């Protein structure tokens, strides 16, 4: 059974029909990528799944339950979380306080402490800057913080919206290896990227989104070989 199943989703912004009936699924243990150009509807899709945007029609099911139109704070408590586009860390809070916000739904102090130690082990850079105001971090550090913050509750499904956006090639590699690490530790991943090359390389399956429709899907390897994909997204 799919962990996440989206069926015939439609989203309007006023009169703009941004998502025109898309369906996809993510199975437990997979890394699935939605690739698509700027404005294809990737962020809209992610935000609809987690309840930040209300779809006009269609259903979202998570772990066998229909979660369409549930408020995000309830969906998050079911074990799904998201690293949003442009990171959206809390720039007025310190690094440690941002991580505490990530564990907002957890009341057990000892568990929070453990998670925080784990994150600091994964991202030693954040430990060094533990008490620094997050708004003063570099772009790469902010991305690490956003990922660490999302992992504080050990989500079952982690969604990442363009985590490589605006980062140097070295940092992009770090981000992708971190995603692989989360996956190896048992987290199911739904990734949204414009960087098709790197994301297809780590994906089990992928969907290609174009102006609100899924125009192609397949395994990471199949799509990497596809001539259309090469031409449109892989710069070849």
């Amino acid at each position, binding site marked *: 059974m799919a962990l996440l199943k989206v069926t015939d989703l439609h989203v309007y912004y006023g009169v703009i029909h941004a998502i025109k009936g898309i369906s996809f699924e993510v199975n437990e243990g997979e890394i699935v990528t939605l690739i698509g150009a700027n404005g294809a509807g990737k962020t809209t899709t992610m935000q609809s799944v987690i*309840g930040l945007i209300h779809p006009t029609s269609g259903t979202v099911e998570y772990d066998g339950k229909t979660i369409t139109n549930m408020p995000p704070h309830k969906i998050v408590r079911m074990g799904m979380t998201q690293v949003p586009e442009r990171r959206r860390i809390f720039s007025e809070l310190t690094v440690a306080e941002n991580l505490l916000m990530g564990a907002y739904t957890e009341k057990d102090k000892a568990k929070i402490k453990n998670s925080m130690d784990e994150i600091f082990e994964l991202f030693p850079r954040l430990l060094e800057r533990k008490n620094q105001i997050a708004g003063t971090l570099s772009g790469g550090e902010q991305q690490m913080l956003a990922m660490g913050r999302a992992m504080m509750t050990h989500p079952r499904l982690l969604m990442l919206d363009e985590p490589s956006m605006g980062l140097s090639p070295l940092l992009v590699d770090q981000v992708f290896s971190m995603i692989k690490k989360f996956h190896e530790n048992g987290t199911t991943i739904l990734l949204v990227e414009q960087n098709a090359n790197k994301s297809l390389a780590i994906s089990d399956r992928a969907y290609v989104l174009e102006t609100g429709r899924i125009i192609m899907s397949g395994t990471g390897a199949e799509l990497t070989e596809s001539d259309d994909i090469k031409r449109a997204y892989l710069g070849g």
Partner: protein
Amino acid sequence: MKIIEIIISGLNIGVIYAMIALGYTMVYGIAKLLNFAHGDIIMVGGYAICVFCAMSGSRTFFFVSIVAAVIICTVLGIVVERVAYRPLRGATPIAVLITAIGISYLLQSLAQIIFGSAQRYVTVPDLGKIMIGSLGIKWSTIITLAASVIVMVSLSLFVKYSRIGRAMIAVSEDRGASQLMGINVNIIITITFAIGSALAALAGLFYLLQSPYITNTFGAMPGIKAFTAAVIGGIGSIPGAMIGSLVLGLIESICDTIVPIAPYKDAIEFSILIIILLVKPTGLLGKVRREKV
């Protein structure tokens, strides 16, 4: 001596403004709305004290009346948010503004229906004075200053170190990202209204200790002045509201000494405020928020 008197009187009025300005600034920062009915919560708190004090002249009953006023205002704040503002979440700011003005008039009219339009005397106890050298300070002033400082320090610690307090900062900075953390924004907004309204009740009490008369527009002028103080401090900022209020209180106290005639005093006071805002449009501690795309 005169200088010390001016400063004490300025601080006294300043901390009262702070009790009110904190409500404006927290609600603005977290719920992103200007609650123009906030001043009338002070009035409701004042009438609550008036009614309870009239029931018995004893001092213990005076403390009961304070607790009652705080509870009534807190509940009223929560109800106003729930009934009038929450359904308008996502509506245009102008619709919210009109609603706020409507609630303000509604509360004032209800007070007039219940208590009449004549000024009422509130039987708060006269706490007397303490003499320090040749300087006489009213006990009510000392209590107002001490209680306000305790409230402001506790509130700052609460916001900085508690889970709910951090959630308030998070919601004020980015509501969507807060929801991704599992924060129920509605609850945070309810708590914000509750805190702001409880502080407004205290402001009503402190006013009555200074001058024990009340009408249905009791909260209007303090409301506007405290709102101005919040803007001077940088609306949305908690320390800003405190500093803005103290600045306003001191300016008021100085103006009061130079020209003790109300219209002149207010005119000078607001001119100074306009100058401050011309020099620093975001307020003393206000930040220019980066636009979110």
